[in-house]
């Protein structure tokens, strides 16, 4: 292979260990972020159902605010604000909170999709409100949310390159760093893209199968 070639297979293989290390960070951040998004999203969805305007009005404003501003800006802002917190932690917390606002909508839809007859049967069996939620409504609602959860996990996974801006060495930054040292950006970033695809495409097929099964 001559030096003018835009593609060097040797470089493509050489960058792989760095990228796999970065991919591992990316996956960790996605998993931790989605745990926050799932738990916090459920709390937001439940809080929005309370009749108290004192709770729902500010919460709705906060949720809209988070949704309507770019996650990149949020990441950098929080990173600069909380200098003592490592970028890694800022990364999954900010992504988690950002996606929690979307997950709350998924939960809302999931809760509303539980038929009215389920609530009525719970009343007829004299179940308490708390028990009705825990034993009847949430198990069915959460089942309804699994495809949404999967889709947002893929979407969060693909947004982890933003963490480049707060110096977290996830997969994209690993590729960038390699490119900066070797000038082989094309090989590095192509491999980054392929690795993203290798994870998100099978996951999306899984989610689609889940959607079909739950439909």
């Amino acid at each position, binding site marked *: 292979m001559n030096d003018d070639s835009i593609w060097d297979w040797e470089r493509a293989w050489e960058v792989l260990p760095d990228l796999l290390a970065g991919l591992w960070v990316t996956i960790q951040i996605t998993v931790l972020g989605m745990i926050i998004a799932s738990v916090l999203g459920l709390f937001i969805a439940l809080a929005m159902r309370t009749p108290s305007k004192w709770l729902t009005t500010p919460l709705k404003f906060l949720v809209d605010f988070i949704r309507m501003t770019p996650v990149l800006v949020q990441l950098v802002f929080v990173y600069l604000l909380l200098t003592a917190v490592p970028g890694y932690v800022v990364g999954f917390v900010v992504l988690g909170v950002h996606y929690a606002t979307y997950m709350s909508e998924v939960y809302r839809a999931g809760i509303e999709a539980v*038929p009215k007859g389920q609530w009525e049967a719970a*009343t007829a069996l*004299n179940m308490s409100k708390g*028990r009705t939620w825990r034993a009847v409504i949430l198990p069915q609602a959460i089942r309804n949310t699994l495809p949404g959860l999967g889709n947002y996990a893929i979407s969060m996974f693909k947004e982890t390159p933003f963490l480049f801006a707060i110096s977290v060495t996830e997969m994209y930054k690993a590729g960038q760093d390699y490119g900066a040292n070797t000038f082989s950006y094309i090989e590095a970033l192509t491999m980054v893209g392929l690795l993203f695809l290798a994870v998100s495409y099978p996951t999306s097929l899984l989610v689609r199968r889940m959607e079909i099964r739950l439909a």
Partner: protein
Amino acid sequence: MTNTSGDVPAIEFRDVTKRFGDNVVLDGLNFSVPQGQRITLIGPSGSGKTTILRLLMTLEELSGGLILIDGDPYTHEYKGEKWVAVPEKRRRVVRNRVGMVFQQFNLFPNMTVLENIIESPVHVLGKSKAEAIADAERLLEKVGMSEKRDFNTNQLSGGQQQRVAIARALAMDPEILLLDEVTSALDPEIVADVLDVLREIAETTDITMLLVTHEMQFAREVSDRVLMFDKGQIVEEADPETMFTNPSHERTKEFLKAVLGG
């Protein structure tokens, strides 16, 4: 407060009003059901029959009047002159005496057959799990569903689901059982199985029953009294024999002619 003996009716409606927006469904309805009686409510759709059951199960809120269960105010009461809602905590005490079976079964799909049945005996009545399971198995036997004990509810046919729903309601040991068109969603050939189960319950227990049904033959067999409703009012009240063979009210005659195809 509870008085289940003597002549305190199991259910009493006192001047009950129910409106949905501008639509008045029940307007000052009065009637009572003595302990252990089986009452069938008939009448055209929109006449308020199902609303009566739903009010009794607190699935709808009263607009006015009182419902008494064994003489106890259930959903609302008068404090002096003021008509107020009974707090949920006290409603739950009375609600334990009332059970309901729905047209659409409404089994919990995230639980097995057995889990559906023992849920409230354990978590509401405070029975031990072992005791609740023993009771549930006895009830499953009674409704002919013993083999399906550990099945998911979506593996059951409509008729089977409804039999489980009946067992689930009975597991709460209700004094009053509300049956809301329980065979209407079933295939015709399965209706008889469910009616057989209900007939046996009627014969072997002294549960007070309120039925809304289009199965006139069944109503005739099991009920002590039939109430004909039209526009939220009782237009005729009689024993089943009289009601089905020799009704006196013109509206009843028209209705029965329409449903019996006579």
